[in-house]
């Protein structure tokens, strides 16, 4: 217990210092000034969400291979965390783009992929909500999860192919080009902080799901003992 609190306190400190670094330590960007600072969290959010979705993909495959429910718990935990991080990314993107380039949104490869990813995993969670039997829910949503993630490279490629045929002014292109070393360091801190925020949430959500299953198992055990006791009593039988 103490160790958990200590870890979380450490991570909280990390997040706070990352925020401080992003807001005050990082140098002012040449053209975009203060608004650009959102970028640190925007990119970090994207990286964490993609990692979470990848974990969900692996968990889906693992469940289909082993049929052990713990993988299903990991899949849903990772999907939920991924959707949250993805939402952060999708919200911070336009917040940054609008003051700088005057537009809220554009269908470039990265943004499109992120948006479709978000839709896919929202659908995944929706599907789970509509399937009742735990085993069937785990199996069918795992199949959907595999299909969903397989789609991601296809979305990216289709967008790139479209872009080569309909060249658009590159607006969100040069994020990493010619980055000031201090900016790079702040970026690294922010990314680590974001992961530091994501991982405990993921672990907790996973534990929560497993506890739910354990609770169901215990309930079953209690019920079956009660039923056994009843059938042994004189009133029991056909």
């Amino acid at each position: 217990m103490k160790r958990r609190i200590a870890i979380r306190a450490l991570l909280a400190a990390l997040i706070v210092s990352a925020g401080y670094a992003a807001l005050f330590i990082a140098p002012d960007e040449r053209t975009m000034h203060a608004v650009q600072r959102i970028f640190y969290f925007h990119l970090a959010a994207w990286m964490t969400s993609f990692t979470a979705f990848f974990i969900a993909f692996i968990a889906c495959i693992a469940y289909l291979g082993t049929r052990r429910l713990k993988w299903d718990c990991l899949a849903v935990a990772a999907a939920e965390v991924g959707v949250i991080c993805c939402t952060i990314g999708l919200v911070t993107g336009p917040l940054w783009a609008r003051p700088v380039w005057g537009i809220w949104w554009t269908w470039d490869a990265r943004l499109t992929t992120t948006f479709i990813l978000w839709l896919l995993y929202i659908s995944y969670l929706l599907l789970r909500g509509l399937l009742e039997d735990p085993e069937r829910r785990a199996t069918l949503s795992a199949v959907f999860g595999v299909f969903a993630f397989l789609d991601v490279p296809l979305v990216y490629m289709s967008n790139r192919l479209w872009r080569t045929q309909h060249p658009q002014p590159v607006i969100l292109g040069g994020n990493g080009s010619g980055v000031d070393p201090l900016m790079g360091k702040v970026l690294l801190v922010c990314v680590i902080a974001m992961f530091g925020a994501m991982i405990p949430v993921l672990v907790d959500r996973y534990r929560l799901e497993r506890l739910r299953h354990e609770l169901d198992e215990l309930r079953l055990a209690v019920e079956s003992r009660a039923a056994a006791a009843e059938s042994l009593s004189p009133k029991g039988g056909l």
Partner: protein
Amino acid sequence: MSAHGATLAPGVASLGICFEGVAKRFGPLTALREISLEIGAGEFVALLGPNGAGKTTLLRIAALLMNPSSGNLRFTVATGAAQQDLPLEQAKPLLGMVAHNSLLYDELTASENLTFFAQLYGLEDVRARVLAALETCGLGARAQGIVRAFSRGMRQRLTIARALLHGPRLLLLDEPAAGLDHQGLAWLAVTLARLRDGGCTILMSTHARNESLELATRAVSLAGGRIAHDTGLRGDVRPLLAALQGAEA
């Protein structure tokens, strides 16, 4: 009504089935609790018990339509004196099931339904078999009739004919008498008697009396997902059968 024998897979005399600690849960609901039951080849087992006792679940697991949550299912085959295990994949084509649902396509004719399933099972001489099967169950005149227009009794007869088409060696029946009139019940009894005499293993569930039960060699009753009573191979089934409520409507 005539008797049309089914062709046997060469070398397979009869099929037995073994439930070893089979349990089935549907989320929070437990349908079967640790059922261990061994049914030998050629037995005719009546599966009794009130609604919700787990009879349908047990039959569906036996039909390989469902996997048990825990425990094991084994098929045994007896050729001569020896008895050996049969892999599930090989046992599959030897199973037949008659269930609550008709398992038929309403928009097709009786003949088309049977033809489709005969083709699916890779049977030979499909036309002749289908015609013979329709004659046997008394639907010869209605071969071109759309199933949607059939009465309950006719549908049940076609369902049973469909289940027998490929000559199963283990027949699973879930309340097969439901919907049959007197003539149909008599036909069912005759058909089951013929199958039993031919060495087919039969597992039939029911919760009310009907003629076919007279043919049973063993009775197993379920309650609350457990085996409440098993007359065993040499037991007397009559007391258990007598306990059943009334006659089948």
